[in-house]
């Protein structure tokens, strides 16, 4: 890395100075283990929810909501800790957020199309 910076990094005056601390920020090993444990628990919850859905016959919407909530929790943990977004500088956090905003735009507008199909109902045959 030092070699690279000799050849490529000498102009690094952009946002480098004020993010120096971010480059050295790190996540402790203990935190990694705790996050890993949390992910295992969430995985067990996913399987458990599937089991319960089969036994209790939960409403479909509720089942989906539970599955989504667990999935979002897992994703958040992975992005924040394993992908280091929590200790990254602002620009990185902004890009990570932008990806989710872009994803949300895609899903919301696409689903908007699906919900609005058939509004208004197609007119019948002409008299």
């Amino acid at each position, binding site marked *: 890395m030092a070699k*690279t910076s*000799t*050849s*490529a*990094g*000498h*102009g*690094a*005056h*952009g*946002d*480098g100075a004020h993010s120096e601390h971010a480059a050295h920020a790190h996540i402790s090993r203990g935190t990694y283990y705790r996050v890993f444990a949390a992910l295992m628990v969430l995985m067990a919850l996913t399987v458990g929810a599937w089991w319960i859905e089969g036994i209790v016959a939960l409403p479909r919407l509720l089942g989906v909501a539970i599955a989504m909530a667990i999935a979002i929790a897992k994703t958040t943990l992975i992005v924040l800790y394993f992908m280091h977004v929590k200790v990254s500088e602002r*620009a990185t956090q902004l*890009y990570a957020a*932008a*990806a989710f905003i*872009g994803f949300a*735009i*895609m899903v919301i*507008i*696409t689903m*908007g*199309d*699906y*919900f*609005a*199909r*058939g*509004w208004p109902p197609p007119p019948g045959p002409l008299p």
Partner: protein
Amino acid sequence: MATTALPQRGYLHDDTPNLGEWIRSWLFTVDHKRIAILYLLAINFFFLLGGLAATFVRIELITPQGDLMSSDVYNRMFTLHGVIMIFFFLIPAIPAVLGNFLMPLMLGARDLAFPRLNLLSWYLYMFGGVFALSAAVLGGVDTGWTFYTPFSSTYSNSNVILTITGAFIMGFSSIATAVNFIATTHKMRAPGLTWFRLPLFVWAMYATSLVIVLATPVVGIALLLVAIERIWGVGIFDPALGGDPVLFQHLFWFYSHPAVYIMILPAFGVISELISTFSRKRIFGYEFIAFSSMAIAILGFLVWGHHMFVSSQSVYSSLVFSFITMLIAIPSAIKVFNWTATLYKGSISYRTPMLYALGFMGLFVIGGLTGIFLGVVAIDIHVTDTYFVVAHFHYVMVGGTIMAYLGGIHFWWPKMTGRMYNEIWGGISALIIFVGFNMTFFPQFVLGYLGMPRRYHVYPEEFQILHVLSSAGATVLAVGFVIPIIYLMLSLKTGRIAGDNPWEATGLEWRTSSPPPTHNFEAIPVVTTEAYAYPPEAAARDAAEWRPGSPL
């Protein structure tokens, strides 16, 4: 640190003992300038290949009978043209060639932030290209470049998987380049080079990179899902398997409309540089041009449904998409108006790059305004899948991106090679391209409005005159493209030595030697002025003193 002295030799300097070493010195280089040259060669190869496919299409359309090739071969020919031109020429052309060469130079950096990732991006591009080419060699693909389902996922008997694998891999190449540009812009600007001192080319590349990073994964996934449905019969898009074909269109256009901005935003950046340099004036409304690039990048994510007005999309969605499509005309118009205002009272010299820039402005305005026609639901339904659409997007992509690409290549050719090209032939070829382009594509607006559908090789006889005119224009256009290849190649041997700054331009890239040394600058430059800091009296002084080289 910033003042470390490095051995300075031109990046083209060759001291390899034999041919094998020479090849290795290029294929394993991590110098952004050499990688740009690798891209230049590869991308121009694909451009010629895509042009060859277009030639066959235009020859076929000279007669209304469909007598040169069968409808199936014709389908494969226009698909080859579309796939090659979109994925392997238009999307990477300006970022990978001019962006790779210029971004570190404009930022006052020694290289991009991740030089090895940069080299990897070229290999990914080539690897994707090999897949696409092998699909063509093995019989081609007949889906059109849009790969609409369920035809592509279920019914097509052509090399769909190979082709989409090529496009999928090439997407990663784009992403690698974009990540490099974003990191370099944030972290490696020279001292004093604040965001609002950046050249507008850098702003444009930054906005483009944002679009690439956020949009490309979506098309990657969409193409992967097509492959999954095609190989394993998993019902995703095919109604017969319980899927929804319109979902594919949503996912595809979520990328492919922003992809239009991936093609055109870098072109805007090039044009800003050219207009300012050859008007000898600070660009008018710098901040507005910079922010309009970002506005286009963001709004570009909200308009994809205007490609789907006849797809069974809900009418309410169509209305919303139509309205937002109108909005995106605003930042595009801001740029054109600001370039025009820059020209006002400028000392305009009609050198070859400027001819391309002026051509760009005219053609892009026609392409952009017809885009507004197509954004209106009622008109779009009338001309959907006609030659009107074909003419529109060629005005934007060819009239926009290719004009800017050629203008940029000419403008920075002295910097890239250290040699000047033949200015007279440059001007002639720029005019030939402009005339040939309009001859080719303007008749297509008329054809489309009269009802000629795209992707058909048999047509009513009354359309023949317009098709012949279009094919004749394509011939002129092809001549216009071949001439620069000849005189630019000749300039490498016989061209006049350019000097460091032949255009008397501002910008850090002109403050180093031509061609630049491997590490770009003897010492990292310190920036103390705004971009395009032409002295206020420069234009007036030039008007008083005739500038050599102006043909008018």
